[in-house]
């Protein structure tokens, strides 16, 4: 029943094609409406850049491996502690904050929707428990399928419809949102300590190739009419020369959906490496960007690396082991039976380390060389590339050549021989930056029709008011103002309520979990499939009746139903 009126807001809303118009925004019952009479609250947004709430389409914030990262890193916890204050609980953590820490810091940056990058369905319950304590953002979970035995068997047998049925069962059981593949085939090979190096090489035991997995999953995903496309962490992450694998992968992607991409390729910076060893390591961002520009069926996020300490954590078990061999840092590993893997290791990206300097450059090159911001989402694969609190710095770098040049001066002196960044003059515009921090995500995730990423009538009243006066700010020169301005909102509004005011969060909780429930014909319903149930009970160490996550774990939630076209 709460009504709110935001007056004189300077709005940029690319989904509505609004590019810097001053207007009033009316809110009733958590949704944007045409207008309100006698509003309960009025906010004067004069001089404030007003945007739809930020959406992070790939971040590691909740679940088993994130929590591994927390409890193995007390030194990280000590690096970012805050006390209880009003409605805000105490927080800890720098690169792997506690759940309250994540939520408050994202809220302060104006982010209202978060997609957890990787959740093993067997451990979904854990992710949902942590979602509950990430109280100021709507949460969604990408569900891992890269090593799923039932899926791999269906692909081996050429039965895509069965594959779709398997995906549907797991997504509903785990209350997940999207289909995630991390080093497909590689995580299963890691079950016995191996990895894959080429998308055309058969994986151990199952005999199919990573390419088979990727293409079949895409087809099955589209058959299920899911809001999001397959979300892929390519094979060979982090290896010199891996750009060829990335290009090969992209060349295999069909165009099966006219509303959005058919493949979301994530943290592409880590997959854009040239050279054949660390000695001749260089950027191949140009080749990757060219491929993306040619393929509307692909959307990427950049996976920007920023200098400083952070913690890497992915489902890519073998890759994390290789980092351990390189850095000899403390290393954790966690393979999940019949499903996937994971690994965690702290890292320190240094300016004077040539490889790290090249990595930093590549992320920016991708942001500048991919033509359309709709295809190029800004992210750091939090926390793998950098903690998400660095997003404003990334925005500033993309908007200002001066800033990039100034930073480039401080890097390893040979960086210029391995990257083309200094030669790129492009400075992203306000519209482009807004697109790659919320509008593109909403489109890529299929959330536009659920009222996210835009401020149209009927949309969710998730709104961020930044202390940035666009008329008097030249992002090319005033990059400090960009960083400060995007770091802390004047107001972050979630479901029509102010949840953060000048950095202080003001509500205990105000969020929902979004999950999908694809309906398949009875013949493909794994819930009644004897072979599936028998195999499940035989090989898992948990009974199938105890596996699905009950509704009691998801509180307020939005169930996104879809009918499969099988």
């Amino acid at each position, binding site marked *: 029943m709460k009504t709110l009126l935001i007056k004189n807001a300077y709005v940029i809303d690319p989904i509505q094609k609004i590019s810097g118009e001053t207007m009033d925004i009316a809110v009733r019952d958590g949704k944007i409406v045409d207008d309100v009479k006698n509003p309960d609250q009025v906010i004067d947004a004069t001089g404030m850049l007003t945007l739809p709430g930020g959406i992070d389409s790939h971040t590691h914030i909740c679940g088993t491996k994130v929590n591994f990262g927390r409890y193995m890193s007390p030194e990280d916890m000590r690096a970012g502690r805050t006390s209880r204050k009003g409605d805000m609980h105490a927080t800890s953590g720098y690169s792997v904050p506690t759940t309250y820490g994540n939520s408050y810091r994202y809220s302060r940056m104006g982010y209202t929707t978060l997609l957890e990058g990787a959740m093993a369905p067997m451990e979904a319950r854990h992710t949902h428990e942590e979602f509950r*304590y990430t109280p100021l953002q709507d949460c969604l979970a990408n569900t891992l399928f890269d090593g799923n035995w039932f899926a791999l068997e269906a692909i081996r047998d050429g039965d895509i419809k069965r594959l779709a049925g398997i995906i549907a069962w797991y997504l509903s059981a785990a209350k997940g949102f999207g289909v995630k593949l991390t080093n497909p085939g590689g995580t299963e090979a890691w079950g016995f300590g191996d990895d894959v190096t080429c998308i055309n090489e058969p994986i151990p035991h199952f005999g199919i190739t990573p390419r088979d997995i990727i293409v079949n999953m895409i087809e099955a995903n589209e058959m299920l009419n899911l809001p999001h496309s397959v979300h892929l962490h390519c094979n060979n992450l982090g290896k010199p020369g891996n750009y060829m694998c990335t290009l090969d992968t992209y060349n295999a992607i069909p165009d099966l959906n006219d509303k959005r991409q058919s493949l979301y390729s994530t943290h592409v910076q880590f997959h854009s490496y040239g050279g054949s060893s660390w000695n001749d390591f260089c950027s191949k961002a140009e080749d990757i960007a060219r491929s993306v520009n040619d393929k509307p069926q692909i959307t990427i996020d950049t996976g920007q690396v920023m200098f400083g300490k952070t913690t890497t954590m992915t489902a890519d078990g073998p890759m994390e082991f290789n980092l351990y061999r390189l850095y000899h840092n403390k290393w954790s590993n966690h393979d999940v039976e019949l499903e996937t893997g994971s690994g965690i290791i702290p890292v320190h990206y240094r300016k004077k380390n040539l490889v790290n300097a090249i990595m930093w450059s590549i992320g920016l090159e991708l942001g500048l060389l991919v033509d359309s911001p709709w295809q190029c989402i800004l992210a750091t694969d939090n926390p793998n590339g950098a903690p998400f609190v660095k997003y404003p710095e990334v925005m500033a770098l993309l908007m200002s050549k001066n800033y990039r040049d100034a930073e480039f001066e401080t890097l390893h002196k040979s960086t210029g021989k391995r990257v083309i960044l200094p030669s790129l003059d492009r400075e992203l515009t306000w519209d482009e930056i807004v697109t790659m921090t919320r509008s593109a995500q909403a489109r890529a995730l299929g959330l536009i029709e659920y009222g996210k990423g835009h401020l149209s009538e009927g949309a969710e009243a998730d709104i961020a008011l930044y202390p940035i006066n666009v008329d008097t700010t030249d992002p090319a020169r005033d990059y400090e103002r960009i960083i400060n301005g995007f770091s802390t909102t004047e107001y972050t509004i979630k479901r029509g309520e102010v949840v953060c005011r000048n950095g202080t969060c003001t509500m205990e909780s105000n969020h929902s979990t979004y999950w999908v429930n694809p309906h398949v014909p009875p013949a493909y319903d794994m819930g009644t499939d004897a072979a599936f149930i028998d195999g499940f009970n035989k*090989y898992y160490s948990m009974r199938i009746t105890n596996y699905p996550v009950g509704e009691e774990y998801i509180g307020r939630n939005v169930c996104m139903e879809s009918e499969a076209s099988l």
Partner: protein
Amino acid sequence: MQEIKDMVCPFCGCLCDDVTLEVENGKILSTDNCCTIGNAKFMGKNRLKNPIKKVDGAWVDITYDEAVNTAVDLLLDADRPLLYGWSGTHGEAQCVGIHMNEILGGVIDSTTSVCHGPSILAIQEVGHPGCTLGQVKNRADLIVYWGCNPIEAHPRHMSRYTTYADGYFLDNAFRNRKVIVVDVRETETAKVADEFIRIKQGGDYAVLSALRAIIRGKGDMIPETVAGVTKTQLMQVADMCKTCSFGALFFGVGLTMAKGKYKNVRNAIELVDELNRHTKFTLTPMRGHWNVYGANEVFSWMTGYPYAVDFCRGVAFYNPGETTAIDILARKECDACMIIGSDPAAHFPRQCVEHLRDTPVIVIDPFQSMTTSFADIQIPVAVTGIDAEGTAYRMDGIPIKVKKAIDSDYPSDTEILTRIYDRMLEVKGL
């Protein structure tokens, strides 16, 4: 009479979820698939009927309302309360405990500190190369039990997850698996091993180092015996580890409580790290209680630290040895305690129990325990897994919903803690 299948046993870290219960008239008549200890848990009798309070040295019956108010008063009165136990309750209750501790500015610790705390200290130094138990079941052809005795402490571990469990990649699993047991004494588990290594007390660290050296090709520098183990046996074991397809090392308090404590575990982790350069090897601590790992998980995502969390500074502070329950009690630092889901009077050194005796203590437990004798009040609650439900984390980190079989009038841990917490907020005007 009703038969309920796939129930979860709330006793040890195995968290077996294939238990069948026969229930009639709100009582459990019998169990199937349980080990002796699990069966005892489900068939437990003599629960406390109502809250009790010690008044002038004698016990009197009180109501839940009175119990809640007394608990609130005792805790709010204290300068440095200690909230201890947690391993025998479900996660939802643990979350309330954390919130409570934040308001109280006290110390919250779980039984971790007297069990696998040292393992966590080691993990915080060198990480944890682990996996879920199904990986072991389906792939492992070599099992190592080091400093633990699953036949006595985790009775179904070997049949559900290791030695006797059927695996996808192993035909005839039992024949094709080898089991190595390392211990200072010949336990029941040692008797069924293919290879038993008897170590001299305190020699684990040296033996682990010797194995690491052999695996790195430095076998020449190993003396004829190390901590009572012959070089021949060491070479044999190193070879078994290096040439297996998938090795799984399980370890228990034999490492965490032995001389060197967390250093032993660190060495074991580093041995497994080294083995990963040659084959696939994983390591799993044999967590004792059914939800002690859950307490670590909850404490970590809520505060940043897995146990021994001190909030007196207003921020989370972690320093095992200083903020752990044993030390706090031994130094007489706490002036009120809430004990939930554990029994420190039975398991803590005498000096700590003496301080419990001299301090106001609230016990939350379905059964009379040894700690009851030192309590000021005890509040009985429902038993998770029988008449209460909640989330627990298995020894390998897998979260399982522990369901309830019957209803009762007892409040669950979450319910009673929430009542106490809400009343605290009310009294403090928050």
